[in-house]
């Protein structure tokens, strides 16, 4: 017994070293798996606060771009309104019965305070958290298209698993045919992502638009993703399909977080069905 204690005492630094390395390795492995990095993420009070300060400076540089994007979005929304007005004019009176409408998606606006896009696993940090009703697994978009899915959430901040993340999988479909596939990223280029599992029956052409599929409860159907850049067929399947994103992932200012209010109901129903 004494020998064991003296052995431990002699090698105490080595043992401390080993223990801490093991701890670091655990954090690393946790961060590689999808939903487990609880301790080491930038959605906490200190890091969020510092990134917020830094971002206040950076924001000035992005203002011009952000204003342009907002005005483009305004034009689009005005156009949509215009279409509706015309169709409203067809009828001289309408009865709006609010009971027939229910809100499915709730949008929250947030500002990106940290953005990485050069790494293997990229994350963004946004300045809204559980105090603003955010939770993990909510879709994040801006007017140009999808950005990612929220991951860790603290009181005032949240991290977003970017679509530029090797672990990211998003259900998407083609705009002109209802064929579904999933979106992933091969870590080569921050403006290009890959479309996987698209059946060969779907005929695609370069320039075709890809939108979100709406199969999951995270993203509603029809959020723009990008256009097909190039593809290759092999053994009667698609070998690879590259998609150019609509979004410039290197400069993202304001984003919207989508909360599906029917999520719980859908989840419960699906669980009930699979248990039967």
């Amino acid at each position, binding site marked *: 017994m004494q020998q064991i204690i003296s052995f431990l005492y002699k090698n105490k630094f080595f043992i401390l070293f080993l223990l*801490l390395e093991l701890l670091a390795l655990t954090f690393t492995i946790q*961060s590689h798996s999808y939903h487990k990095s609880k301790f080491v993420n930038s959605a906490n009070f200190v890091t969020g606060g510092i990134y917020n300060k830094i971002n206040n400076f950076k924001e000035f540089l992005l203002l011009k771009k952000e204003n342009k994007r907002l005005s483009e979005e305004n034009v689009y929304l005005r156009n949509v309104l215009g279409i509706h007005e015309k169709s409203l004019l067809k009828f001289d009176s309408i009865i709006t019965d609010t009971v027939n409408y229910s809100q499915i998606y709730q949008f929250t606006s947030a500002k990106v305070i940290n953005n990485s896009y050069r790494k293997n696993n990229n994350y963004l940090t946004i300045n809204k958290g559980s105090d603003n009703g955010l939770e993990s697994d909510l879709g994040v978009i801006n007017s140009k298209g999808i950005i990612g899915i929220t991951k860790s959430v603290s009181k005032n901040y949240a991290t977003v698993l970017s679509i530029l993340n090797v672990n990211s999988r998003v259900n998407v479909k083609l705009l002109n045919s209802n064929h579904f596939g999933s979106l992933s990223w091969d870590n080569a280029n921050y403006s290009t992502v890959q479309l996987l599992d698209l059946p060969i029956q779907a005929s695609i052409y370069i320039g075709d638009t890809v939108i979100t599929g709406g199969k999951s409860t995270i993203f509603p159907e029809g959020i723009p993703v990008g256009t097909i850049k190039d593809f290759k067929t092999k053994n009667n399947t698609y070998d690879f399909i590259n998609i150019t994103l609509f979004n410039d992932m290197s400069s993202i200012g304001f984003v919207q977080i989508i909360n599906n209010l029917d999520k719980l109901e859908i989840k419960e129903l699906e669980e009930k069905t699979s248990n039967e």
Partner: protein
Amino acid sequence: MNRENINIAFLLIGLVLLQIVVLNNINFLGYINPFLYIIFIFLFPIKKIDSSLILLSFFLGLAIDIFSNTGGINAFATLFIAYVRIPVLKSILGKREIDYSITSLFKLPFFRLFLYVVILTFIHHFIVFGLEYLKWSNFGLILLKTFLTSIFTIILIMISFTFISRKR
């Protein structure tokens, strides 16, 4: 709290801020961000390994990890080079035992100092990129990134050394 400890505390905080505010956003040639913060391992007084260096290097790496969402990659790599720095120094100087009372970083001959920096930086960067990809199929990419980023980091460390040594 003596003066040395206060200096070390300021150095730690300064290095973390410099790394996350400036250096992580450089993206030279697309993806090269130097890890200047490991200069801490070199500037820490040369003495026998003890728990202070082990703990400080672990928390330095962990702080960088928390800010850049990388799990425990930097903590692992930084702790590793902190642990092997004395054995590496011994083999570079070709000595079995180092006289800790007279050996200091800036009294080392230039070539040996350079070799010391190169070896530890390479080990650190290799571990960081190896753990980031965690796949043998990316071995070529890991080596390329290690090589390019190391060059950048080593240049920055050597420049910082000249500034610091002139001050003393």
